[in-house]
């Protein structure tokens, strides 16, 4: 088994609108190790959501994966049937969205919704099944049952078990008195509680991967702090892999182990959280850091904004998507997007300044022109 749970290779996703092709994701590749939290950060429209929705094949029409492979636990998700994908969604890969109200059905109780998801996706474990099989009196039937179980087939979880599990996870995410509150409707929950219920729903099938798309953006900071705390606890206790999408650098620093910085549908830089915060190597990443206040008491530093505005993906600039706003842009930047150059074994930067022929401006050049694999 590979140490990576997910490998995205040369993914391209476009929307074919009447105005033309919107290239939302333009050739991105990354690998995700088991058991960590990967942060994807970038400005509005940079392709964070579309790249993640592509993984679970939930891109709305007129959007389509145009190219690439998505290997999840040994299978290429772009190749499997729609039916197989539906089974995987929820059971192996779960998604948490920004607005909890759109993912919860207002006419059903929290209980109904949780139980439905659990019963659809969860089977009892081999151990439990064997335990049950032992109780079968008829030896012939018992033998058959055990054989089925050895072949990996166990029965679906029943309603009573599903309810127990739902309550267990609601308690885990900090819903007070879950036994009674589970009978309520989504509108009876506050915003923070709804988001917790969604986290519980995502966890309840014990997926290998959770994709959380700005799950705290709509929440107040005191509630955001509660949810971030919860996700950290989950990571520690459940060993789930999480992809966390946000535009907030503070949240990335607080929560994530690894970071991908996106811009104009491409990956600009990848690295460990410390790489990205203490040793950023891409002009865009550096620009982002200088755009946010980092004042120390008693002295205010003027912010250094990035001039201009993000690209129009209907008409992306040729070459590096950041070139119209980059003060280091060279001729080649206007021609070809830069490949990811290896800065270290954890960090890589998609910038021509890392090329062996590039001049060393302001100490950017770190890689010696070696491409990241």
């Amino acid at each position, binding site marked *: 088994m590979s140490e990576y749970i997910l490998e995205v290779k040369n993914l391209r996703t476009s929307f074919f609108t009447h105005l033309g092709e919107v290239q939302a994701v333009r050739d991105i590749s990354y690998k995700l190790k088991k058991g960590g939290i990967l942060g994807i950060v970038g*400005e*509005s429209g940079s392709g964070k959501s579309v790249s993640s929705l592509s993984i679970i094949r939930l891109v709305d029409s007129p959007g389509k994966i145009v190219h690439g492979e998505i290997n999840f636990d040994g299978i290429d998700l772009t190749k499997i049937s729609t039916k197989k994908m539906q089974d995987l969604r929820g059971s192996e890969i779960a998604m948490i969205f920004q607005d909890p109200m759109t993912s919860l059905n207002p006419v059903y109780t929290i209980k109904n919704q949780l139980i439905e998801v659990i019963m659809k996706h969860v089977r009892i474990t081999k151990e439990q099944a064997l335990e049950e099989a032992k109780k079968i009196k008829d030896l012939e039937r018992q033998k058959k049952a055990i054989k089925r179980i050895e072949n990996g087939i166990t029965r679906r979880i029943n309603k009573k078990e599903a309810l127990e599990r739902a309550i267990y996870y609601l308690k885990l995410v900090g819903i007070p008195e879950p036994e009674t509150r589970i009978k309520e409707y989504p509108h009876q929950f*506050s*915003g*923070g*509680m709804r988001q917790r219920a969604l986290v519980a729903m995502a966890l309840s099938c014990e997926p290998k991967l959770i994709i959380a798309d700005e799950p705290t953006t709509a929440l*107040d*900071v*005191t*509630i*955001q*702090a*509660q949810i*971030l*705390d919860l996700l950290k606890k989950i990571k520690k206790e459940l060993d789930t892999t999480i992809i966390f999408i946000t*535009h*907030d*650098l*503070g*949240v*990335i*620093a*607080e*929560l994530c182990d690894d970071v991908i910085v996106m811009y104009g549908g491409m990956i600009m830089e990848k690295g460990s*959280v*410390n790489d990205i*915060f*203490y040793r950023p190597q891409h002009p865009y990443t550096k*620009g*982002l*850091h*200088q*755009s*946010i*206040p*980092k*004042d120390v*008491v*008693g002295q*205010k530093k*003027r*912010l*250094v*904004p*990035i*001039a201009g*505005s*993000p690209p129009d993906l209907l008409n992306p600039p040729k070459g590096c998507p950041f070139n119209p706003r980059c003060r280091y842009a060279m001729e080649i930047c206007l021609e070809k997007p830069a490949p990811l150059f290896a800065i270290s074994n954890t960090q890589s930067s998609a910038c021509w300044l890392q090329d062996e022929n590039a001049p060393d401006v302001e100490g950017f050049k770190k890689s010696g022109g070696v491409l990241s694999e």
Partner: protein
Amino acid sequence: MNKKEVLLEVKNLKKHFYIKKNILGKIQKTLKAVDDVSFVIYQGETFGLVGESGCGKTTCGRTIIGLYENTGGEVYFDKKLISAGSEEYALNIQELKDELSLKLKKVAKDDFDLREALKKEYQEKIDIEIEKRNIAIKKEKSAKRNPRDIQMIFQDPYTSLNPRMTVAEIISEGIKTHKLFTGNDIMERVFYLLETVGLKREHASRYPHEFSGGQRQRIGIARALAMDPKLIICDEPISALDVSIQAQVVNMLEDLQDEFGLTYLFIAHDLSMVKHISDRIGVMYLGKMMELAGSDELYDQPLHPYTQSLLSSIPLPDPEANKISKRFLLKGEITSPINPKPGCRFAGRCKYAKDKCFSEDPLFEEILPNHFAACHYVKDINDLK
């Protein structure tokens, strides 16, 4: 700035919304969006107003500028009374406004002419109520605001500009109404303002939809500047913008402040940006001011339990610092300002709360020099004498 001149004084300001009337017109519930808030803003400074969503920041700003009818307390601008509250007339005025918004709901969104006509009709009725109110409280002469003095910039750069007007029309609307410039000078003024906010002359003839969020916010700022205001109320002017664009707008606001000697009331929930831009900061919770201090002092030494948890909840853009910083996680969530219970508004979530907190409103008092807080036990909690 040794001798600080007070530009705006807000005294015991209240803005209550009355909801759910029964058939006799009796009020069933009162939503106390702003409830007895006092502060001053000095000439040339930036005063930040922070707090979680729904705590009353926007309502406070809108009541100061007169977009909402004041239901209690006074507002002074340049030492002159500009707004005085009265429950009775506020009720009448709110009724008129409710009627208007009902009617507006029935009119197509893009029928601007009819919308404007309705607004005008109701504004006249409302003005009559205001006159009556002023006479009743015998402050008719003084309680009048020069509409140019205070301007406002809104949070949403997409809905705050009329999509059917060109940029030039948007910016010059106020100039024309108040006859600040005439003839060719109007366009010259528009060009000057566009350049001041970092846009180009060519942009004058375009429509709002042709601009990005950051550029629209610049148009909104140009419109405010057109009136030569002394105070600008900025209601979350950067919340809807991308990080890299936020810095552009913040820097521009700082430059304009230096150039024109502007004073800002800066409303926001992004606490690190507020700290960066503000000289002093007020923290609101459920319609009440909880704490007020200089911005460095507030972040360094927050006294109120709510401010302490609020500030400790901010994730810092610094992984190592996050590991060592202590979080005071709050339990529960902000409750509703409808018929609030007596006592401290924060009591339900406060880990220091005692019996007294549930029955008596704490006073908003100066605890350290120029550092105010509203908490019964603030001295014990912070080991102050």
